[in-house]
């Protein structure tokens, strides 16, 4: 009897211990993730990666906020409004305080502020996965595959272009011959064995990659009329418009003019008239948009509106406009206000409701509620300004003047007859008053190799183009994690 029980017990233990190993007791059974075979079996899986890529662009370190505001703070359009710690360093070009889109892409509390970090390469890998998968399953639906490929290439081009303009000099504008661009990763990373440390390619190689992606996208993407969600998906004209911008930065003004003119001639987007202009900024979809990013409620956590949105940074608290506790971190520099010519309708976007010296913008007003709004990335007026400048710089000043006057007359200004440098200066000023808070000012000087002007309150008149602070520092995370990566000079 005793022995029987003893043996039985041993028997039970033996059964249980083998059962654990054999019967899959410890086989994981996740419900929140799927294998690559399932995830990338079809074009739906590709579309999901493209969707992820688009969505990453609304990160607050990118177009969600900083990429739109910082180029104005790093130059002379805005100064610190309420001191929330935001844009304080940027306003005076503090070393190492710059646009940061090359970091770990997690929400993290850094010693000074809570902020969302962004890694442009996460977006790039999303679309790289899409591009490699399309090659394998294009036959499923060639038409759909083409559109997805076009969108993926558009996202990749936009991402590399942003990396290049933040971290590298434009080709031909190098300081001390420093011609590094960024690391060009065009292969999808599926696992750690696909990761290789590599140093930065040249800026020219980067621009060439962007160009080839956009040229491909122009061929693959549909026209505006064929897109249900226009302007929230890129059309072939959006790709052309972006390419025009790229050529402008590259100094290829003739090409820029050609692409810009093709967009202007074919787009369904309209240039707003003086009467329509002010109201357009509280429309959910900007009528001038050639490409716009859509932002939905689910994209934000509950405090993103008041913490991180474009509207909270640029408006002071206003219960009547449903912007309670808006931070008002930036306000117009006096120099920006002074840059408006008399009767410019755009001057009315800047108001001073509480303090005569505190001019705040009504461009980003969070019209969808809780500070939320969609984000126009390429507008008709920008393409018009690209055309004006590019034509003038490529020997067609008259054509450029026509384009500029088209814009001026629709903004309440008289046409200009300026020419030569005066005309180019006027284009720069027109860009300043039209495109402020949309992420251009700093880059407009940088692409031309010009010193960056600063408002009087900065305590210095300009940041010399040769100053190391013109290029952003590459984040410590990027440098630490890639032992062969070259930091920008001066850091």
């Amino acid at each position, binding site marked *: *009897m*005793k022995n029987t*029980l003893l043996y039985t*017990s041993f028997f039970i233990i033996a059964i*249980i*211990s083998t*059962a654990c190993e054999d019967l899959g*007791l*410890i086989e994981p059974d*996740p419900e*929140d*993730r799927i*294998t690559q075979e399932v995830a990338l079996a079809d074009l739906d899986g590709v579309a*999901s990666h493209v*969707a*992820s890529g688009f*969505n*990453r662009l609304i990160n607050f370190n990118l177009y969600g906020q900083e990429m739109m505001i910082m180029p104005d703070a790093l130059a002379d359009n805005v100064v610190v409004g309420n*001191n929330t710690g935001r844009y*304080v*360093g940027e306003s005076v070009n503090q*070393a*190492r*305080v710059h646009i940061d889109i090359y970091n*770990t892409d997690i929400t993290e*509390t850094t010693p*000074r502020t809570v902020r969302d970090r962004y*890694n442009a*390469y*996460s977006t*790039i*890998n999303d679309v790289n996965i899409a591009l490699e998968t399309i090659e394998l399953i294009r036959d499923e639906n060639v038409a759909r595959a083409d559109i997805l490929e076009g969108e993926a290439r558009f996202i990749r081009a936009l991402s590399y272009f942003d990396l290049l303009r933040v971290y590298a000099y434009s080709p031909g504008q190098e300081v001390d011959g420093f011609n590094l661009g960024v*690391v060009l990763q065009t292969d999808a990373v599926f*696992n*750690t064995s696909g*990761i290789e440390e*590599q140093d930065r390619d040249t800026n020219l190689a980067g621009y060439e990659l962007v160009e080839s992606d956009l040229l491909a996208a122009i061929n693959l993407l549909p026209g505006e009329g064929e897109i249900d969600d226009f302007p929230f998906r890129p059309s072939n004209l959006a790709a052309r418009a972006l390419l025009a911008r790229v050529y402008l930065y590259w100094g290829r003004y003739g090409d820029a003019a050609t692409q810009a003119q093709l967009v202007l001639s074919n787009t369904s987007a309209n240039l707003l008239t003086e009467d329509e202009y002010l109201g357009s900024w509280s429309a959910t979809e900007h009528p001038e948009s050639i490409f716009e990013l859509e932002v939905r*409620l*689910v*994209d934000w*956590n509950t405090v993103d509106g008041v*913490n991180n949105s474009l509207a909270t940074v640029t408006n*002071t608290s206003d*219960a009547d406009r449903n912007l*309670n506790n808006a*931070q*008002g971190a930036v306000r117009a520099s006096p120099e920006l206000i002074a840059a408006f010519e008399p009767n410019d309708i755009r001057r009315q976007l800047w108001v001073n*409701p509480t*303090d005569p010296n505190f001019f705040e913008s009504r461009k980003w007003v969070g019209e969808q*509620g*809780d500070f939320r709004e969609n984000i126009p990335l390429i507008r008709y007026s920008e393409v018009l300004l690209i055309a004006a400048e590019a034509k003038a710089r490529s020997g067609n000043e008259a054509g450029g003047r026509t384009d500029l006057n088209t814009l001026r007359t629709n903004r309440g200004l008289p046409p200009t007859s300026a020419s030569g440098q005066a005309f180019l200066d006027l284009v720069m000023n027109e860009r300043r008053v039209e495109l402020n808070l949309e992420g251009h000012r700093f880059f407009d000087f940088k692409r031309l190799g010009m010193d960056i002007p600063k408002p009087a*309150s900065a*305590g210095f008149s300009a940041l010399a183009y040769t100053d190391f602070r013109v290029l952003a520092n590459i984040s*410590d*995370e*990027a440098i*630490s*994690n890639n032992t062969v*990566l070259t930091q920008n000079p001066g*850091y």
Partner: protein
Amino acid sequence: MKKSILLGFMLVLAYAFNDALAQERTVSGKVTSVEDGSALPGVNVVLKGTTSGTVTDIDGNFTLLVPSDGGILVFSFIGLSTEEVEIGVRSVINIQMTADVKQLSEVIVTGYGTETKRDITGSISQIKSEEIEQLAMQSFDRAIQGRVAGVQIQSQSGQPGGNMSFNIRGQGSTTSNAPLFIVDGIQIISGSIAGQASNNALSGLNPEDIASIEVLKDAAAAAIYGAQAANGVVIITTKRGQKGKTDFQVSYQGGFTEAIDRYDVLNAQQYAELREEAFVNAGLRAEDANAIFGNPRNPESLTDFDWVDAFLRRGQLHSVNARLSGGTDKTTFYISASYEMQEAFTLESDWERQSLRANIVHEATDRLTIGTNIGLTRQNQFGSISNGNFVNGPFVATYSSQPNSPAFDENGDFNVYPAHFPSTSRGHLFNYNILEGVTDERRENFVGQVQANMNINYKISDDFTFNVVGGIDWADTESINERPATIPVFSGFGGQSTYDNRRTLVINGNSTLNYNRSFGDHSVSGILGVEVRRFHFEDQVATGRGFPNPALRLLDDAANPQSVAGGKTENTRAGAFGRANYNYKNKYYISGTLRRDGSSRFGEQNRFGTFWSIGSSWRIIEESFAQNTTFLDDLKLRFSYGVLGNSNGIDDYEAIPSFSGDRQYLGLGGQVLNIANDQLSWERSQQLNIGVDFAFLGSRISGSFDVFRNDTQDQLFDVPLALESGFDEVRSNVGEIRNEGIEIAINSVNVNTGGFKWTTSFNITFLNNEVLSLPGGVDSLALNTDNQLIVGQPIDFLWGLDFVGVNPANGKEAYRTRDGRIIYGNAGLDDGYIIGSAIPTSFGGLVNTFTYKGLSLDVFFQYQFGHDAYLGDFENLAISGADDNNQLVSQMDRWQNPGDVTSVPIAIEGGVVDGFGQADPGVGLTSRYVSDAGYIRLKQVTLGYELPEGLVSRTGLSGIRVFVQGLNLATITNFEGIDPEVVASNNDRDVSSFGAFPVGRQYTAGITLDF
């Protein structure tokens, strides 16, 4: 698998009842003290070689069923020498017991069994209930802080019911150092379980219900837990009833808590002065500053308001415990109920727990014992935001809020912040009135928790016992965050409610076969067993907005659904294990342990692991040469070595390369790749321990001395990935960390004359933590990130530049680079270096107890030294007035004129001078905000009085004890923050302390009545 267990149960039960018919008779008797003849209650009386036993009642009497053929009764009691008495044919056995100076017969709970202290080969510390009863602490981890050598317990928050960190012998892992917690044989949930405030799963167990806590610290002791053993094991045994008279005890204590310390911040005039100066130095106009912040030369125009003072309060606390215990020959029970509530010393922070416990043991036959332990608790916690640099966190915002801006208007209603000079548009802290937020916002946790198990113990023969335990720890929590529209920032969308429901469930079962036999001078024992543990967690979170009235706050009342979220994760561990012990003449001991474990968490390639240990001890005291000494009472040498695992450091599905849903665009769900490593496996810790247990001078002095070295390799570490891959890190098994140290525990009886007794318990641990190797053989990794490590350095250090002072010529902060240059900012990665270590190099505790007749006084100090903490708060409060945040009073010593010698830089709006940020070296941290965090704290003073028996008996009670108690009464420290105890595991790099919730000082008085 499930069927196998069931089958096993049935088989065992079937045999058990078959065998339940043996003949029995009763013996009874009385146990008295040999010294004064007084009755000895609570003495264990066990029939040798069985689990059949009882405990003497208050009068020292016992009754026990024994086999008709007799046997041997073993009488044991802590502090008395164990007696063995042959029953023979006697039915009455009266014995006298003598004090056992060696205290070696104490029963220690070990993995899946018990052993006497004498026979232990491993390093195990034991805490008895007496040490932690009536401390009015919400969880046992808080109660044993500083009382166990080698165990470092640190408060994460002063929030009542808040979380603690618990490290045994240092931090051997870069990811998780939490030990395994076991209550009555069931592995329980630890850590945080609810969505609001700092909360602690271990609060689900009322410390008053704990009989003993054993901490298994070395390989010999812990290896039987295999893959979960590397961080040590904490085994908790709850109280049992004792056969005999039914005891009924009621106790109450009540008191209050208050703040220990606070930062001293500027008043309105000082603030206005500093702001004006900062404006002027930045080239702005003084009159602009005056318009916004007031004119410092006109103090009458300023209204001072102390935000911190308005936030602090005196908190109440009450605790009522009632317990009923007792038993008959066959059945014992322990039933307790408690209610405890505690308010923090700050507004809207409190905690409440009701608990109920029933522990029942029934001897169905003389072979079969079944028992069940059921603990039910409900907690309700209201908490503030802490540990983060948030404008709605009161421990940040009450200090930062401007002192010239009253929180209330003349009617006592909340002002919109900032309330001063309302003509300006200058906002601050998102215009969030922190006192309004704390008062009106609801952040509440409701926790319902069941810890229950059932066990069956079957005595197969004199030598073999079969034991089956199965149980659960089930915590359901509901966390509610209401942000009513009455707070301006939430009025825009009509208020918001978020409900976060979480379920955490551990199911754990094991079966063991225990063997125990002596052959002459040889004793052999062993265990064979199997165990399965499943962990399940799921949550659902829903947020609604737009409530018609602040009083209507359920999701049903919301006009707009805002968001939903939810997830689910599970893991399963299963293992088979065995242990064998052998000793010769109670002199030479050797033991070996082996466990094979599998875990669903690990990569397909590495799902199983084998862990083992050997232990041995030599009781030198039994040698003839030692017997001849007069001063030596005990001397034992212990040695152990083993390889243990730690699997806490990864998420359940982290080893599966996969894709999951994330993001959306235009309503189309996005999808992202989870990069993963399918080779992932355990951290393997090689643990070596050499120890000595000793007692001399008539055991007036006793203690133990241990030296240990734990080398943990295959660290579950986030290996950095080149960011150009689109990823930044992947969890891998790489690198090795060494923890080595010395543990000393000494107990002494200093005075014992004329009824006066003074005893001391002292423990200290010296620890050295060091990274031995890193992946790829590099010397340092990921500097200036969360993952930074350097070979030869501790795993948790502060990295940055030393602040060398303020340049007297221009008021700029200067730093020293790694190569010795003095710079004013823009440091790069090559310039930084280690400026402090966050890991204490020594810690411990000291208790002195004085008793005289019924009076007793306990004085307990707890301490830790040799580490630094980063003062996150100083980034807001010690920046020489660079922004609108109120500042520490120390900032008034700022540099003003060339030649000023001070450590506070020039006040300048924005804090940037010549392109360089003040207080920011450019990379890493500044030593200006690093502070020595060592401290020694008077943790507890308790003065108790046990009323004389004569007096008590007239009341009809059997005992009355009254006491007064103070906790956290005094602290000696150089720490510049508020509380050196609450610095770790904060929000940045585990080192900083933004808005930490400090612990409070607590005064209580209480009474215990025994019926």
